[in-house]
């Protein structure tokens, strides 16, 4: 049995994705993404700009002791990590990328801009996701008749206009959640983003407990890119509600290294919030 929890694995996988020049706003699943982002700042990305939670605390924890991993995204204690705090609506005033469209080109010099804006990466949840990466937080059913009411879109549609990459994160992998077509779209997938000339690229990944999908750059359809340790392609196919296409090479996500786990547990999650 692995000596790490699923949440620890997720935090480490996402921390690896983070670059020193990134501007990141945390979204759903506070405890995992707060851990991932704080871990990245404390290890390889000390200049990554980080907005935590609806209190819009711009945090840097490189030289600050994280006594306990925050469990809610709105708590007063987040201010201990903050260098700047803003009204929540102000977060949308940080949306415009420096240089506008120019920012989104690969290797743009504007990537190195220091000031915070919103954002290179954003983590989103969903009650459904489809093969286009459209996700749904609104509910199931039809307009005027919900068979299941979801929590609401939060601000994911607002964010989709400008954020470079979103990461869709599902807490379970089954045919109810991964569907051919979502009932409602709260977060538009890559195709809709492109059709509407958004700067934002839409989802880069769909992450589930079994695997990571990325997107075919031509068709903009989801394709299996990585399996978590111990999961098979057949397992993914059996539990996915759309036809599972695959990337040229499907890799297995590298399990946490000893030093990654040590860093997570000694620098960010001392009390083991993610372990249990």
């Amino acid at each position: 049995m692995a000596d790490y929890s699923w949440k620890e694995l997720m935090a480490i996988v996402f921390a690896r994705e983070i670059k020193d020049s990134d501007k990141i706003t945390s979204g759903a699943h506070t405890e995992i993404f707060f851990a991932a982002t704080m871990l990245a700042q404390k290890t390889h990305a000390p200049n990554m700009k980080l907005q935590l939670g609806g209190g819009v605390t711009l945090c840097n924890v490189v030289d600050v002791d994280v006594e306990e991993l925050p469990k809610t995204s709105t708590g007063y204690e987040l201010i201990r990590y903050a260098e700047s705090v803003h009204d929540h609506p102000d977060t949308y005033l940080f949306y415009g990328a420096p240089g506008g469209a120019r920012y989104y080109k690969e290797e743009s010099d504007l990537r190195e801009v220091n000031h915070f804006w919103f954002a290179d990466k954003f983590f989103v949840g969903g009650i459904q996701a489809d093969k286009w990466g459209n996700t749904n937080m609104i509910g199931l059913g039809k307009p005027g008749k919900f068979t299941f009411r979801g929590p609401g879109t939060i601000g994911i549609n607002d964010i989709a206009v400008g954020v470079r990459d979103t990461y869709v994160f599902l807490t379970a992998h089954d045919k109810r959640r991964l569907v051919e077509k979502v009932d409602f779209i709260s977060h538009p997938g890559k195709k809709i983003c492109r059709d509407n000339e958004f700067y934002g690229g839409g989802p880069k990944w769909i992450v589930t407990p079994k695997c990571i999908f990325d997107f075919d750059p031509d068709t903009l359809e989801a394709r299996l890119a990585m399996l978590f340790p111990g999961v098979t392609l057949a397992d993914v196919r059996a539990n996915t509600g759309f036809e599972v296409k695959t990337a040229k090479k499907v890799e297995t996500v590298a399990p946490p290294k000893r030093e990654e786990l040590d860093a997570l547990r000694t620098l960010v999650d001392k009390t083991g919030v993610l372990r249990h």
Partner: protein
Amino acid sequence: MSKKRKEVVASIPDAAAKIKDGMTIAVGGFGADNHPMAFVRELIRNGRKDLTVIASATAGLEIDLLIGAGCVKKLIAPYVGQEMYCPIGHNLRKYAESGQIEIWECSEYILYAGLFAAAAGQEFFAWRGGVGTSIVELNKDLVEFTDPIGKTKKVIAVPPLRSDWTIIHVGWADAYGNGQHLGARFGDRWLARAADRIMIQAERIVPNSVIRKNPFMTTIAYADCVIEAPYGGHPYAAHGFYKEDVEFIQDYVRCSEANRKGDEATWRDYLKRHVHAPNDHYAYLETVGIKKLLDLYTHPIVSW
């Protein structure tokens, strides 16, 4: 020769009596923090109904409680839940799935766009977010049009969202209605600016001189009414004073889940225990207990 300034302090019952059936109210706070719960409970005691409720951009279970108590006719909210404690409000589900409440579908910034339009006296606010989603299909008040400059991109016109009263919980306020948050402000200032009238629920009323020490920290200027309610945010956190009461929230989640699943007696009992039986705010606090309240203490972080 100078006349005296008018003070706007009221008791909780007198303040709550200003809210009438059918009004539009906006309720401040965010997530598990800074909700005006003493005021919300008094509204329920008064049997308010047919309210249109503008929630914060990430509403917590304060809105779910108002729904479950039968006060709400129409809900304007991009989210109702409590993160890991309760991903989706159970009363939201019960009432939305049975068609007992109308939902004005929106996202965080579509909400703010409407508040902005009201606050700035504009006919609408133009915003790109929401294009390509189901929100416009679900909310007929939103009108899609084409960017008049570039002539290609789609934009959404969001009409003004105005409240009759906005109720905000702050750390402290003076008797003239000047309130200061001691921690995060979330979207409170925008909810307040779109209000016809502003109600402050303060942990403490302080002298005007305390406010003037750092007027940059004043978040609400000249509210129309101020009530004092120490621990008035319980069971949620009040920044600068106390953290959320996790067990109490878990009890709420359990009882509201029972309600959603058809066990209305458990829910009625919850309302009786925590809203109707204690006939005022201090009687409510007695049901929590002094030690529990004091155990929620958080030490100050911000200095000024």
